């Protein structure tokens, strides 16, 4: 009886020490799940999810404060990826957050720009170039299409234009000739 109690006690003590050591030695900085959620989000930093950027939204998802269907730019693919990562069921995009749109690009009408710098401050990825009382322009390569620059512009000289299809970005489409059982039946009849 005594022997068993001592043996179990020692075992428990040893395991406790081991766990304590592991907790210090193999400590994980930050929350890895936040990183992985953030990696799936499209990084437009548009705030349509109701948070101040993709990272805060990722943190909110991780602690269960936000749902996985609040990101319109990520679209259906993003929701499916998040659902897979978190082991949940995918669900349709919450219409309160907006609708999935084709990729757009902000373009400044440079003739009408008054150089107020308001859009520069609004841009979450510093993709607008310019200085006070000088014309501004959007660096197309850096623009995420978040639309945050539209509202602050006092002269409404910023437009969202769809990304023009180019031969270098063209993709083969999903084959149209899907398996047709009907036509096969028709052929068999002939």
């Amino acid at each position, binding site marked *: 009886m005594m022997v068993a109690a001592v043996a179990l006690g020692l075992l428990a003590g040893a395991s406790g020490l081991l766990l304590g050591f592991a907790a210090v030695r193999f400590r994980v900085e930050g929350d890895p799940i936040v990183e992985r959620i*953030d990696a799936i*989000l*499209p*990084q437009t930093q548009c705030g349509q999810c109701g948070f101040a950027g*993709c990272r805060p939204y990722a943190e909110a998802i991780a602690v269960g404060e936000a749902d996985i269907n609040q990101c319109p730019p990520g679209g259906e693919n993003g929701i499916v990826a998040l659902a897979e990562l978190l082991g949940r069921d995918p669900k349709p995009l919450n219409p309160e957050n907006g609708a999935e749109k084709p990729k757009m690009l902000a373009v400044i009408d440079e003739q009408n720009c008054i150089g107020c710098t308001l859009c520069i401050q609004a841009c979450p990825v510093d993709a607008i170039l310019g200085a006070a009382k000088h014309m501004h322009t959007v660096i197309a390569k850096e623009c*995420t299409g978040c639309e945050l620059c539209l509202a602050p512009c006092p002269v409404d000289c910023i437009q969202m234009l769809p990304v023009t299809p180019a031969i270098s970005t063209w993709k083969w489409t999903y084959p149209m000739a899907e*398996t047709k*059982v009907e036509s096969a039946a028709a052929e068999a009849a002939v």
Partner: protein
Amino acid sequence: MRLFPFHGGLKTVRHKTESNRQAIRAAALPKRLIVPLRQHVGAIAKPLVKTGDPVLKGQRIGQPDGYVSAAVHAPTSGVVIAVDQQPVPHPSGMTDWCVSIEVDGEERWIERCPVDYQHLHPSDLRNVVRNAGVVGLGGAVFPSAVKMNLSGHCERLEHLILNGAECEPWMTCDDRLMRERAPEIVAGIHILAHLLAPREVLIGIEDDKPEAIAAMAAACAGTGYEVRPVPTRYPSGGVKQLTKLLTNKEAPTDGRSTDIGVQCFNVATAYTLHRAIHHGEPVISRIVTVTGHVKQPQNLEVLLGTPFAELIAESGGYQDGVQRLIMGGPLMGFALHDDRVPVTKATNCILAAGAEDLALEQPAMPCIRCGACMDVCPADLLPQQLYWHARAKEFDKAQDYHLFSCIECGCCSYVCPSRIPLVQYYRYAKNEIWAQEKEKQKAELARQRHQARLERLEREKQEREAKLRQKAPPRSDAAAEKPTPTASIAHAKEAASSAADSPTEAIARDA
């Protein structure tokens, strides 16, 4: 001489005799040329001319942009009438940047400077090749200068392979070139051999071209280059398949052929290399097989930029029953939307295909899991698994089955009894994966920029606070001193001037 057969492959219809009986003929000079600035893999060439500029034959009109790029030249003398977007031969039917030239018919050359390649530094020689616009003329149009640099992938090249297999049905441009201009091809091989110093030079030609084999063997006499006939079995002209056939070596899935000490060039590329080095003539023309449902199928030497329609007209026009106009062969080529598109460096064959040549494009039926595709796959893949995963858009799983080892040769679609357009599914899956990859990179860039912005804003905020703390005198002193009106005006002025220095900050503060 042992050959090492590759897995799979096909005996296809040949249709070579329609066009390989007549000698290569120079096509008539067209009135107008549309020269695309993207005729190669890699970055599009930068235009060097503008509307109204006179150009000479062989003058450079497109500057290579970046390492993987090639120059573009005016195919004949004339005047530039436009630098704009024009339809180009591409499966999308879209437009791309082109230089349009009104031909003056005088064929005035720029000054041609032959190069003594043996006394040139290898990197200078590669630059000459790059500026002459030499690219792989087998159809892949990869810049040759890049391939002529082993760049540490192997110590020394074991085998230099010249690809004269020309395994696709209908196509005979390389066949005619080898029959008629073998000594020039061999002169080009000398340059490649000089630069790459291979242990062995092998020339692979399918055995249904005995005349070409004889001509090449005669031209190679005494050079040590070996002409090796290979069995006529599609796709023996694929780089990996030809390498396996001749050397029994296979490159690793994610590696290059230079990793196993092999480099491969098309025979037509060697020919243009010879023209560029020994005659100072850049790539401004190529041999094009015009065949299929045309009245006189033939091989034409065509200036780049010549519209397809003119070559069709020169071959007697279309015959009845043309269903599709295809660039390239029936297995790997693609259908064109328009016959006014220009010939590019990639145009090896123009095929006016009839209904009987397009058996692949009938309605598909369900897969019956017969496994015929697997038996013919020359890349030794499992096409049926790839098909299921690509169809279900399970791209990860498709990659697990080595989707990117697929060479899109079309053997699987050719034998499929259900006529499923298998290669289309693979192309679709590859494109989607590339696009996702690009999206990911863009998102990562945006994330970094957003992070940098947040850090900058935080830093600016702290700096501002520090400044304010410095300016505002401690409370007790202020009470003792009692601020005079002049002092506060000075303060205000200072603040105003600092605001003028950084307007962003000022507005941010106002906001």
